[in-house]
């Protein structure tokens, strides 16, 4: 059995829970038999650091606990890097994807193969806004596809388009593609 565990870090309102769900859906379409996506609910409010989880597996998944040793960590908001060690428990050879304009080589993280992309920049350019604030969850899915190869960009775009209809869906799918193109570990 091959199981991949993903931990999402963001702030309340940034759409981390939706990212976790959309990744699970994309992974299922890409042929993984077992998928799970679940949030960790503390006493959330908009802006507070939040966590969500995705598990994907080549077989049915039985385990139902939280994820302590992720294979991949996705960070929607780089300001969280100053607050918590997002790489805690990251497996040997694990990957960390951060939404930041900085280059991966400039980030000082405790462990992991680091990838970065400027999701906020893409969101502002394409108008991916909720209540006037940039939302980077769909761009992160594109970056995720690039950094891990676990799901295909086309599949990610497909689940985005089925989640949001019309122009909003198209803009988000375009955001995922741009993130896919610029995401880099350099």
């Amino acid at each position, binding site marked *: 059995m*091959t*199981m*991949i*565990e993903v931990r999402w870090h963001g702030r309340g309102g940034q759409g981390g829970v939706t990212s*976790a*769900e959309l990744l*699970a*859906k994309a992974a*299922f*379409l*890409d*042929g*993984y038999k*077992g*998928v*799970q*996506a*679940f*949030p960790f*609910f503390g006493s959330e409010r908009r802006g507070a650091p939040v966590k969500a989880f995705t598990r994907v597996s*080549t077989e049915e*998944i*039985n*385990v*139902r*606990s*939280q994820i*302590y*040793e992720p*294979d991949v960590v996705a960070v929607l908001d780089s300001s969280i890097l100053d607050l918590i060690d997002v790489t805690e428990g990251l*497996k*040997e*050879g*694990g*990957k960390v994807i951060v939404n930041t304009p900085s280059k991966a080589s400039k980030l000082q993280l405790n462990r992991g*193969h680091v990838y970065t992309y400027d999701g906020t920049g893409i969101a502002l350019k394409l108008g991916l806004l909720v209540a006037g604030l940039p939302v980077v969850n769909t761009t992160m899915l594109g970056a995720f596809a690039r950094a*891990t*190869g*676990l*799901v*295909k960009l086309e599949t990610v775009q497909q689940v985005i388009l089925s989640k949001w209809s019309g122009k909003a869906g198209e803009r988000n799918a375009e955001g995922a593609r741009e993130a896919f193109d610029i995401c880099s570990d350099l």
Partner: protein
Amino acid sequence: MNVPIPASKWRVSDEMTAATKSSKTTESSSNIEGLTGDAAIARALKQCDIDVLSAYPITPQTIIVEDYQRFFADGEVKTKVIPVESEHSAMSACIGASAAGARVATTSASAGLALMWEVLYCASGLRLPIVLAVANRALSAPINIHNDWSDSYGARDSGFIQMYCQSCQEAYDTTIMSFKIAENHSVLLPAMVCIDGFILSHNVEHVELLPDEVVRDFIGIRDPAQVLDPDKPITIGPICFTDYYFEVKEQQDRAMKEVFRVYKEVESEFEKISGRSYGIYETYRTKDADIVLLTHSSPAGTAKAVVDALRDRGERVGLLRLKLFRPFPAAEIGKELASAKAVAVFEKCLSFGAAANPLALEVRTALYEQPKRPLVTDFVIGLGGRDVPPTVIVEGYNKTKQYLEKGKAPFYETLGVRK
């Protein structure tokens, strides 16, 4: 149990791509969606064509009510949706509607279920089939929105059938089956379909949905045994004092025992339309097991992963995953566990001051008559949503092994808590 995967293997493999292509041909015939446990239950309720849904939203059950209200607002269901000011009223409205012959459902959790308490007994005492979906949540105080089983375990003597689900698929399937079980004339009892709050209620996974007409044909139209009808007035639930109350309760108990048979019949029919079945309990690698872990709901899934890992290390361990807690399948479980040396119970409920906790009490009773009684350990885990990682189950297993060597175990103990 989760080995690191080298980065080189992370690429979507050729086999995976091939599997996707072949699965696409079958996709048109089956309908698979990514749904939370709550959403899966809402979809099942919609397909069961219920006449009345009366509910009050409470975390973590809220999505069920929200989704169903949306089906109603969009004209997708003909159900009479009754928003009420409390759970006491929610169940009361269900009782009235069910007595009038309607197919009815409600949903609750935690404090909401506690507020229903008085009326739960009315539903069962009046022999009214009502489906109550519970997203199990801890009871206050302190306030906690997360999962344990204190709410529905507290209602274990209320005369409701209780079925606990391990996956969103099972939650969907069980909701559909529950109407057919509850409405069966040998049963005529209300039924709880329980899922672990947040762990399942808010977890998105793939759920295979049956076509509407298949569900409709499977459950049919409710055939009430007796109907409250203004044109032919009758009185139901009048005073029964010392003369007949006891007989009514005797009959209720007999009806509960019928559930074993009816559950199996309904499920074998369900298997024909879905290819899926669960059993009143499930055994997992229990053959030749010295120690059998016994639990239900989400910890049972984690325990399966633990059993696999321990088996790889040569440990003789298995799992009995309970589905039906009310009625409790004591005779069958007694036989099933008779050859084990020890049974390790894991439960998310603490019964303050009791000899042991609700699940272990039942298991010990079920085993008491066995000629070679296995040792029973009782581990209270995960109260208030405290996570139950595989390590907690392994700790309980190791403790049970030590107690087995000593030949003596405490009545119960807590795991995964600061002491």
